[in-house]
């Protein structure tokens, strides 16, 4: 058995903040798993200290005699370190500084590194003199839920006075307020068996499964494997625990398909995957180059073994929150793992046998133990022997009824069963109320933890997440021998279930122990506030008040008192709270039940959950084939869904975007322009039934469309509203290419597949997206043909007769490049869309610019595209809102009466055919100099500005270069009957209100003559 050295250096604590860091007065001279050959400097609240590699911030603070580390949430009571693990409710600090400042970090989980900066939080001006501590004086008022009963008068004071005060007082640490400079990543890991927790049960499970050949992932939140074995003086197979652990770790690491992830917390059991977070670089001042700070793992496992251990429960008694009062198991952790004595003179207070180990270990380390205070009337001879050997007086049927000290414990008063009071000086009180299984992940699928009366603890639910088994202390097995055996069994079973043939490993032999305990939950009649939930300052009186007021459901208790809602999510308080409520309300604990454990098991950095996807990498960018060319032309780009498109192409001397866009649109009307329209969805539809298929998805007819011609089509959703529109061309008897709007491309594709695979599988039709295959460029304007003639290979004739409006053809351009030419127009001018394989898109744009130079060609962007289409009254995304029918948009006559199509039936409902529905109209300002704004509502002239007179709104607006004033499209109630009427465009959110005239939606060339030249 390895015994830590007995000598505790006696040394005064140095005090100067500027001077050299003091030595570590509470560090044992030897023992533990810290590296005393190296010293790490760190600061807490600006004061310098030292620790060693292997320390946590908590162990290093204790080594330096720092007891007061934080203030509680509500009463700002002084608090010290309670635990040595993830359950820590008190010792929360702000770690690091500047953009890396991270609030609410548990000192017990923060590995020490050189230069670590930590600060206490939620105090002002300092930790020792916290003015908010005044809350303790008015604590009787600040009982659970007091805020629901007051702050109601005067009403205006809530937001202006009361709430700002509460908000400032609440909260814990401070967020950085600057972008996080570190990066994060996410990855997926597949395995046969996931083992959560590398304590004795988890290690045996991993061994059993890995030896059978299964792919194993072993996750351990600590930096080392071993779990409680690291904190205890135990022997396995005759070896001290650290030596045994080394052997097991070496074997696991040697197996190629066993992956060990340390510093990795499995935080959630979701459907089909667990979430885990690996703290890759948190133990360093800054992440190494090319390393993330943290990595999110999604672990997909065939089976999983939860071996997360257990958490010790505090005892509930008056003053149980004083710095210096600590969990008994944590005291052993600090002694045995970190070589730190958490005090110089201790009292141990317990309801169980396990805490006697703390007596033995303290004594072995040379710490005086004044007394072992056991709540039980009878204790075993072994316990008596341990107390005697340690020189501790044994007080049975006894409890701590009073504590002394404010920012640090100075002594306790114990009352025994006979009512005798014993005043004991001590600076450390180690307490143990028994152990609660860490079963959180086991109930993440909704199964409720079940109370086990015999073991006086909650156990994992019967209904576990699929594929999960629970082993060891997480399953309520507290004896080491049980943990080892259960782990081996669970690992073997998991391997077997995933198709392997395990031979369960032999369980190591261990020394004997006892974990007998008796259920005592709280000490009645003590002095001072007795806390159940330390961080949220929920005491026995708060639970009693909740019970008194009828908040007797355990969920009501939680929500009313905030018990279990702090950053530790009740890890040390839930069982005590439930037991207390049960006792106060006269119910059993089983009948009282427990709250639901929700992910995450411990808090997870939001950055890790986002990973790579932040900033510009938030979502992928789609770039058009002409992107670089457009950039060279000085284009300003705009986000169009996932795409980046050229919005406009400013030229030197142009004062603003409007001038540029006006020039671009005018050039198209008067000469020629080119615009990349690749982003429109393109779907290749083939097969003998292709035309039949189109008949069913579009409202208009397709069978008669000749090869070499295109047609405008509209498709509805099944509820009768317009889904999308676009032009579809017939390339062959059995082949069409459909275009969709940019934003709906994916949705339409999915819809077509649905129609084909689910509704009409009998049709012989195949479809695939070709959006990306073709770079498609619109060449529009009266000189467009002249430009194209210089590009299209001879002898193809693009004259108006040979290639009229709505013609399409496959041909070659630029000396043999295969291409598709469509004579389509969104602008109302004679126009073409030319498509070439995407790799040639960039060069085609350049060639078209050269060819068009003599004609004054300009590139134009999405803005001018919008101007041109508004001038022509073509609908686009602003009108295809999913709230409009074909009739609303003036497309009602396209709806064939001779066939069924998607949406036909529901489009006939009264609500969709109501003649009072708003319909598409054109609008122009009466004052031609006035500017229209999209989103302005349309009201009758002279009517009051109320909802009763709301008759529609402006969907799209543009400055029309052709007309020299602003124009708009809008949806207006009975609009087609109101041509010439003056209405108001009412835009109170931008302070606008002007008169507009209702006109037909086509502003330019209503006869369409320019299309056919």
């Amino acid at each position: 058995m390895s015994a830590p050295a007995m000598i505790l250096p006696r040394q005064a604590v140095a005090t100067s903040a500027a001077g050299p860091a003091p030595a570590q007065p509470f560090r044992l001279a030897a023992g533990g798993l810290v590296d005393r050959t190296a010293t790490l400097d760190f600061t807490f609240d600006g004061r310098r200290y030292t620790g060693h590699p292997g320390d946590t911030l908590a162990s290093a603070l204790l080594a330096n005699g720092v007891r007061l580390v934080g203030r509680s949430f509500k009463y700002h009571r002084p608090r010290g370190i309670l635990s040595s693990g993830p359950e820590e409710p008190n010792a929360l600090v702000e770690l690091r500084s500047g953009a890396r400042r991270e609030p609410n970090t548990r000192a017990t989980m923060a590995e020490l590194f050189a230069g670590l900066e930590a600060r206490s939080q939620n105090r002002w001006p300092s930790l020792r003199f916290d003015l908010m501590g005044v809350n303790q004086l008015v604590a009787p008022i600040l009982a659970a839920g007091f805020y629901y009963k007051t702050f109601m008068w005067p009403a205006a004071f809530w937001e202006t006075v009361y709430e700002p005060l509460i908000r400032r007082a609440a909260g814990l640490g401070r967020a950085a307020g600057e972008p996080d400079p570190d990066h994060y990543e996410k990855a997926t890991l597949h395995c046969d068996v996931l083992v959560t927790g590398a304590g004795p049960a988890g290690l045996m499970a991993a061994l059993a499964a890995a030896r059978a050949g299964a792919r194993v992932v072993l996750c351990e939140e600590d930096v080392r494997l071993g779990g409680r074995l690291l904190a205890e003086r135990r022997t396995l197979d005759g070896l001290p625990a650290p030596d045994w652990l080394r052997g097991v770790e070496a074997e696991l690491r040697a197996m190629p398909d066993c992956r060990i992830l340390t510093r990795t917390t499995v935080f959630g059991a979701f459907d089909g995957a667990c979430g885990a977070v690996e703290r890759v670089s948190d133990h360093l001042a800054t992440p190494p180059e090319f390393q993330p700070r943290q990595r999110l793992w999604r672990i997909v496992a065939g089976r999983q073994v939860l071996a997360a251990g257990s958490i010790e429960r505090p005892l509930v008694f008056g003053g149980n929150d004083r710095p210096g009062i600590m969990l008994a198991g944590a005291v052993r952790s600090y002694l045995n793992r970190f070589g730190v004595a958490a005090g110089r003179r201790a009292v141990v207070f317990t309801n169980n046998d396990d805490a006697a180990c703390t007596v033995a270990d303290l004594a072995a380390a040379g710490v005086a133990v004044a007394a072992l205070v056991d709540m039980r009337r009878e204790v075993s001879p072994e316990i008596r022997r341990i107390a005697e050997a340690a020189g501790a007086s044994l007080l049975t049927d006894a409890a701590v009824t009073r504590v002394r000290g404010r920012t640090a414990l100075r002594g306790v008063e114990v009352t025994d069963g006979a009512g005798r009071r014993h005043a004991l000086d001590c600076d450390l009180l180690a307490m143990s109320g028994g152990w609660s299984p860490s079963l959180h992940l086991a109930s993440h699928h909704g199964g409720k933890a079940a109370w086990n009366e015999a073991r006086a603890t909650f156990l994992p639910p019967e209904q576990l997440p699929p594929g999960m088994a629970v082993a060891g202390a997480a399953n309520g097995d507290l004896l080491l021998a049980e943990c080892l055996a259960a782990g081996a069994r669970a690992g073997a079973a998991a391997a077997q279930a995933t198709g392997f043939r395990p031979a369960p490993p032999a369980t190591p032999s261990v020394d004997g122990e006892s974990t007998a305990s008796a259920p005592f939950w709280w000490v009645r009649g003590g002095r001072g506030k007795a806390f159940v939930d330390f961080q949220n300052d929920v005491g026995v009186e708060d639970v009693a008040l909740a019970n008194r007021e009828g908040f007797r459901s355990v969920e009501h208790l939680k929500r009313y008192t905030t018990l279990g809602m702090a950053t530790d999510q009740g890890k040390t308080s839930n069982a005590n709270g439930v037991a207390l409520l049960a006792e106060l309300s006269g119910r059993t604990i089983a009948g009282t039940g427990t709250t639901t454990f929700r992910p995450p098991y411990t808090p997870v950095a939001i950055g890790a959950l986002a990973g790579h996807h932040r900033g510009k990498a938030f979502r992928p960018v789609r770039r058009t084939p002409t992107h670089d060319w457009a950039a060279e032309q000085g284009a300003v780009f705009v986000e169009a869904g996932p795409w980046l498109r050229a919005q406009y192409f400013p030229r030197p001397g142009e004062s603003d975007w409007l001038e540029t866009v006006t020039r671009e649109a005018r050039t198209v009307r008067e000469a020629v322009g080119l615009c990349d329209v690749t982003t429109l969805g393109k779907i290749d539809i083939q097969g003998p039934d292709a035309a039949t298929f189109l008949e069913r998805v579009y409202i208009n007819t397709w069978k008669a469309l000749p090869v070499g011609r295109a047609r405008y089509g509209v498709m509805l959703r099944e509820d009768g509203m317009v889904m999308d529109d676009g032009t579809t061309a017939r390339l062959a008897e059995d082949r069409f290419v459909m275009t969709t709007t940019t934003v709906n491309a994916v949705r339409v594709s999915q819809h077509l597949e649905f129609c084909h695979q689910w509704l009409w599988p009998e049709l012989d039709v195949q479809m695939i997206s070709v959006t990306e295959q073709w770079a498609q460029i619109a060449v529009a304007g009266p000189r467009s043909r002249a430009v194209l003639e210089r590009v299209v290979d001879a002898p193809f004739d693009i004259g108006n007769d040979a290639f009229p409006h709505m013609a399409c053809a496959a041909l070659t351009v630029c000396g043999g490049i295969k291409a598709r030419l469509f004579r389509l127009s969104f602008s109302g001018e004679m126009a073409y869309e030319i498509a070439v394989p995407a790799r040639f898109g960039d060069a085609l744009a350049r060639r078209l610019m050269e060819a068009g130079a003599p004609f004054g060609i300009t590139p134009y962007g999405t803005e001018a595209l919008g101007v041109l289409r508004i001038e022509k009254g073509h609908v686009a995304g602003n009108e295809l809102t999913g709230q409009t029918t074909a009739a609303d948009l003036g497309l009602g006559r396209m709806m064939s009466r001779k066939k069924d199509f998607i949406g036909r039936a529901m489009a006939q409902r009264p609500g969709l055919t109501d003649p009072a529905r708003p319909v598409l109209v054109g609008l122009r300002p009466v004052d031609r100099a006035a500017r229209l704004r999209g989103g302005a509502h349309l009201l009758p002239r002279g009517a009051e500005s109320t909802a009763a007179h709301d008759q529609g709104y402006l969907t799209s607006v543009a400055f029309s270069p052709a007309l020299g004033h602003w124009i708009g499209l809008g949806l207006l109630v009975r609009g087609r009957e109101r041509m010439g009427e003056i209405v108001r465009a009412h835009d109170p959110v931008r302070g606008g209100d002007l008169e507009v005239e209702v006109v037909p939606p086509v502003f330019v060339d209503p006869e369409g003559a320019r299309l056919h030249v």
Partner: protein
Amino acid sequence: MSDTALAARSPLAGLLRPGRQGARGDLPGVVVQERTGLQIVSLAARKGQEVPLMAAVRAAWGIDLPTTPRRVGDARLAFVWSGPSQWLAVATDWPGDLEAALRAHLGGLGSLTDQGDGRVVLRVRGPHARDALAKGMAIDLHPRAFQPGDVAATLAAHIGVQIWQLDEAPTYEMAAFRSTAGSLCDWIVAASAEYGVEIVEPG
């Protein structure tokens, strides 16, 4: 009245420069290369024509069209399963027009669509290729689960990709829509940085 043919432009032009990035060291953990010289044609069986279509492919090129997510063929011509009764024919340095060649042998049995310009294809190999890919792809690439010849259509960092494994190095090829080439490369380079990544000349 045009004359010279147009210059082709890679979807990664200006976005992926050859050279070493990320962690330094002797050998890069990941090597990334843009594939060139490819022709890709999608093939979908006409209704009820799967059997004759497979026979025709076998007769013409001696390849059994895969009916599961596999890639069958060789570097010159391979068929990559891409959905039920759907494949991508992928050819390298194919003389002439692949679509025309396929049409000549398969006309009427399947619908053919040229896709060669619609995709960017990256070759990703190296001892840490799996680790890097796992940072964006949720599929299992462990040799027990995914082997040379295996194919998957899935997501990589929110981008739709089709991936197939060529050898046990391991070497993978990953095809994605051309427009996403920049984001795809940004991701794979970032994911590979900790292992050291070598961008090699397209080929």
